């Protein structure tokens, strides 16, 4: 596989930023995830790592760090990437979305702006697989890549003070789900009944960076059912193993 060059920058007293080439690419993401696996094998407690697109933020939550020492350790792991053959568990998740006008408060206007019918918009939104390039901003918020260019639309001129939890939106090259009520400027086209962040779960966010997502259009009745199933803890979205 490709190994990309990295650039390591200090980031305050206990963190470093590791940057890969400045692009949104699945093979770069795979490289970052490989690097993380190699680094984890060092078994040093206290390092937290979070991915966003082409960068990895590494924070040592135990103490201040020596930048040069940390950099050497990272370069060492990076050098091992070539010969490591890492098999990761990755999943393709099917995430249900109800595009009903009750939830998709901007769907008609968005479709109009994009020169599509509402049906075509839904068809296009649900016929692609999206890569999870990062989780951040809000607990459980996924940065998804792979939006077809036909669905690219600017943010709303005025952000809303409150976007409802579960809202599915479009903005620029991005699509995503608001995991909680939040202010936001995305164009809202539907709502997802699945809880993306649950602090009571052992793994509070079932999706991992590197996984894929596809959306599935559901009726209001199915939406209500999944919502109740979710509340009592018996609903889990459908998944298939990737690289199986």
């Amino acid at each position, binding site marked *: 596989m490709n190994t990309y060059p990295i650039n390591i920058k200090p980031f305050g*007293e206990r*963190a470093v*930023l590791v940057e890969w080439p400045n692009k949104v690419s699945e093979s770069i993401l795979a490289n970052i995830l490989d690097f993380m696996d190699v680094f984890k094998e060092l078994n040093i407690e206290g390092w*937290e790592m*979070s991915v966003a697109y*082409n960068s990895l933020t590494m924070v040592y939550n135990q103490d201040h760090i020596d930048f040069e020492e940390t950099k050497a350790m990272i370069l060492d792991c990076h050098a091992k990437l070539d010969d490591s053959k890492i098999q990761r568990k990755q999943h393709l998740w099917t995430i249900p979305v109800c595009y009903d006008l009750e939830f998709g408060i901007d769907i008609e206007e968005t479709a109009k702006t994009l020169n599509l019918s509402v049906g075509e918009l839904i068809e296009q939104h649900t016929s692609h697989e999206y890569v999870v390039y990062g989780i951040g901003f809000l607990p459980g918020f996924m*940065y998804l890549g792979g939006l077809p260019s036909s669905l690219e639309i600017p943010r709303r001129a005025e952000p809303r003070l409150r976007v409802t939890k579960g809202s599915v939106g479009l903005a620029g090259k991005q699509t995503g789900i608001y995991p909680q009520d939040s202010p936001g400027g995305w164009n809202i086209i539907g709502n997802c009944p699945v809880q993306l*962040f649950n*602090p009571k779960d052992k793994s509070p966010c079932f999706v991992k960076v590197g996984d894929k997502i596809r959306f599935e259009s559901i009726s209001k009745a199915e939406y209500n059912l999944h919502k109740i199933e979710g509340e009592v803890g018996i609903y889990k979205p459908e998944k298939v193993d990737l690289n199986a």
Partner: protein
Amino acid sequence: MLKVLKSGFYLTIQDLGRFGYRDIGVPISGAMDIASVKKANMLLENEENDAVLEITMTGPTLLFDAPTFICLSGAHILATLNNQPIDNHQVIKVDKGDILSYGRLERGFRGYLAIKGGFQNDKVLGSRSQFVPVTKTARLKDGDEVKYKETKSFKPILSEVKIEDHFEKDTLIVFKGPEFDLLSDTQLTEIFTKTYSLSKENNRMAYQIAELIKGHEHSMLTSGTLPGTVQLTPAGRMIILMKDGQTTGGYPRIFQLSEDSINVLAQKKSGESFRFKLS
């Protein structure tokens, strides 16, 4: 139980933070001024990470239903226990039925109330710090109760210390952030020769600087952010992320505050001024 009779402006339970969940977007939270929390916990011979109450600007009125020992630290807010004045950095015995109340804010912005053994609200994802949606509530309201362990006797090694407060400082020490190199000479001169002040837009998530500097047109891919990250918006607004700040952001990260300077900044109120100094 500690009963909150009146909560004041913004009262929360905090420890040193929630670690290990940054990768799913959970901010670390925890006390804004960790230096003050550590002092109070040290005097009570608590663990560093024991949970305290963080008091913002105006203090609460609190009723204790079991004997214990407390210590106040952080902002100087006039405080009385059963109408008798008490000071910061003293170990004070509290009996069942005692009432702690607060008056005028004299210096600083965030006060802390530490209790022997720490407050005992449930840990969620390894921390007692309040942050929605990890915890159900963002702060304590009138009538809420917080658990603590009864302590009848305790002989502190130090019952009182004179400690110099850090919040009179008006210099924030910054390190170069990942996008520091984007700053032009004009911007650098502006930043390091002028005095800046805290805008009204400030809370546990982020502090905005009132004065604008020259903006930029750089767009970047979303990347990691930390408490103390200074972001620069295209309009030239500096935004400093604090303890409940988001874990990723899309604005250039021009600086990273030193951890000591986060404690200093946490005690500033809107309108107060400071300078930046590059470490």
